[in-house]
């Protein structure tokens, strides 16, 4: 089955990266996970390069995840979209930076921390993933998990046996930046996929883990990645739970920081995707709501005005913002439908 057919047609415009080089923001809540959507982004960027019929969307991808490890993403993308991340890694189209194992998991599992990527059972697709240690609670205790900084000084380099796999060993932004940059540099751009999409999965956990880290320095980190010549888009996945955002009265410093990070990233983004549960309660045949809003103007086209066609100025209503419902099935497939089009579809 070709991978792109795994993306429902209604979802296709949502996960396609815009033409303009820009930042994208994806928010999710605890009840409505956005992992299924991230795998669709992976599928759209990586899968369309294999087919020649829809060019333009093909991109190399660097996935940086602070919330799940490589094995999780490999399983998810295989299950949901039929994407073979291992094969794409060897092709030089995909790289993974593990922000979870080296930073937040107990180190005494296989010995040294930085050996963890090599110990992954990457060559056993049939083995179901063990979800125990990987699925930490989202906002677990920050954990005294900052490992020895001596390993952080080592040059971030993928093990030769596992190309395209990197691991973070420090929470300092310099180290993270260096590691992600190395992962971007390791990709092999091709004429079909000349640019790179960087996906940052839950970098907001750093706000809670690193004392003194400000939202401004995190957004500077995003912008630093975006200035790299081969990077065209940066997709940032943040949490937008009410418990994490600032309430009107007496917000805690962490809530203020999280709110400022979300708001500031939304201001910077050309497209804001939000995943949430139904406002009216739980329904059996609906997993949640996906909302997309587009910020059309940016500094890049600040001096460009419309072409003067009176009719052309009025765009289709879904250009401004739209909502669809989705249902993630047990086998990882997803069904996307309009509001009210429910079970009949």
């Amino acid at each position, binding site marked *: 089955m070709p991978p792109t057919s795994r993306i429902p047609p209604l979802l296709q415009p949502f996960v396609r990266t815009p033409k*303009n*080089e*820009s930042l994208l*923001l994806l*928010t*999710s*809540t605890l009840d409505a996970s956005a992992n299924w959507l991230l795998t669709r982004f992976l599928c759209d960027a990586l899968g369309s390069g294999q087919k020649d019929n829809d060019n333009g969307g093909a991109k190399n991808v660097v996935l940086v995840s602070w919330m799940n490890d490589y094995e999780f993403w490999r399983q998810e993308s295989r299950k949901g979209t039929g994407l073979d991340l291992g094969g794409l890694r060897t092709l030089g189209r995909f790289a993974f930076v593990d922000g979870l194992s080296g930073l937040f998991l107990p180190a005494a599992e296989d010995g040294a921390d930085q050996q963890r990527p090599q110990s992954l059972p990457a060559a056993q697709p049939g083995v179901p993933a063990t979800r125990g240690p990987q699925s930490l609670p989202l906002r677990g205790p920050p954990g005294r998990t900052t490992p020895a900084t001596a390993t952080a000084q080592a040059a971030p380099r993928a093990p030769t046996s596992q190309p395209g796999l990197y691991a973070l060993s420090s929470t300092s932004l310099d180290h993270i930046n260096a590691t992600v940059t190395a992962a971007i540099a390791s990709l092999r751009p091709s004429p079909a996929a000349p640019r790179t999409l960087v996906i940052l999965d839950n970098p907001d956990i750093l706000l809670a883990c690193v004392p003194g880290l*400000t*939202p*401004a320095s995190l*957004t*500077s980190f995003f*912008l*630093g990645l*975006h*200035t790299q010549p081969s990077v065209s888009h940066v997709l940032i996945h943040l949490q*937008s*739970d*009410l418990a994490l*955002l*600032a309430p009107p009265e007496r*917000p805690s410093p962490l809530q*203020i920081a999280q*709110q*400022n990070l979300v*708001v*500031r990233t*939304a*201001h*910077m983004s050309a497209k*804001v995707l*939000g*995943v*949430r*549960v139904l*406002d009216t309660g739980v329904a059996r045949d609906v997993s949640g709501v996906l*909302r997309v*809003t*587009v*910020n*059309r*103007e*940016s*500094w*890049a*086209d*600040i*001096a*460009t*005005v*419309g*072409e*003067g066609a*009176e009719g052309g*100025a*009025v765009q289709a209503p879904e*250009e*401004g*913002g*739209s909502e669809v419902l989705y249902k993630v099935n047990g086998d990882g497939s997803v069904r996307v439908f309009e509001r009210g089009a429910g079970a009949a579809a």
Partner: protein
Amino acid sequence: MSIDFSASANGPLCNDTGRHLANMSFSTALAHPTFLQDFEAATGATPLPKWICELYAYRTKAKKPESRLRQTPKPKDRAADAENWIKRTNNFPVPGGIRKRKTEIASPRERNSKYAMPRPLNAAQYQRHAIQLMSSLLNVRANASPFTLVLDDLNQRAIPFLQHLVVRALSRNINVVIVSFEDTRFHTQVRHVSAWGNRTAATILADIEQAISDRKESLVIIDSMYDAVATKNIDTAALFNLVVMKCTSTLVGIYHTDMLPELSASGADAYAPQPLELLKFMATSIITCRSLSHVLAAKAARERSLAEPTFGMQTGAEGIVQCLHANDERGIVLEAEFRRKSGRSESETYFLRPSRYSDYHQPIAPHQLYGTLKQEFVTLLDQHPAYANKHVVGIVAAADDEMETSFNLALTDKQKAAREGVVLPYFDAQKQEGGEGGRILYDMGEEDDFDEEEDEI
């Protein structure tokens, strides 16, 4: 002072004239010019005492004729105009004719003259005046507003407004510099200063100076004033001094109002005013951006005396970051406050539609993107058809006024026709003119059998 003698012309009081006169203060009475006339007219042929005639002749001898006495004295001017007050050729040239002193006091009849009190503007004049204010700001006129603070949030970002500023500035050949904390990609025609990352306040200011110092007039846009002031600690005084005073340019700062101020860890600034308050204090114009659809919804709610709706993150719904109707494509609503040099502030709400290529003339210079603006198209919000039109608001209100029930109260056409066909009881009786009195209308059915006996009873 006036003494009424007419009542005593022929009466008994006439004889008492001498006694009345004796009780008068003649020096006061004589000071009044009409006293003698009234006195003679009232007393008729009564001869005046001789000493009164002498005193009158004495008092009036040195004075002007009576007709001159009636004139009110002309107010005296200290100077006809301010010729000597302003030194024409001292420091800088001053054009003549300013502050000329009024030499005449306008009488009530001349109220329509140029010295009349200013009347309140009529609607058209006010509109013209308000649009003129906004137009001078949009066209980046020198000294129209040295520091404009633009407040935006996720529901309506400021970029559509800034697009107008930048395009008009470029069309007037003004240098545009963007000091960016939030983006990395820029248009080729504008200069930019990247301020994010490890840049310090000193290097940012140096970069700004380099970007504007070789041009006569510039427009400097800072895309996050909060970062500039609070995070990077750029001294606002130094910034204004550089941009406004030294380079006579215009500074525009954006502040995202949905970002919360972060307290420093030391708590040293717990008692200091928030950056937004400081910036509002210093700004010469404050523009608040709102989405048109949100303004319309708020107006519809107001007209029905409901609470105004909230949008985006303010709704408090979990997972919602941006409202679906944010950044309306039809245009942007600007709530503007202009602070004049006199200290007076004027507020008005404007509507600004997206600009089109046809709004601008053909460019003159080869590398210029746009020619000058053909015609100003910013309008007051009250002039916007969707806002001023009561019909649109009425539709919204009517849609909400319908009863919320789980069943349908409306009728189909078939149901309406069936209802029309129902004959109401005693309808026949109403058609006939009555007067038959007590007639029983009854149609015999099949099951009825006529019973004469019962009918007779």
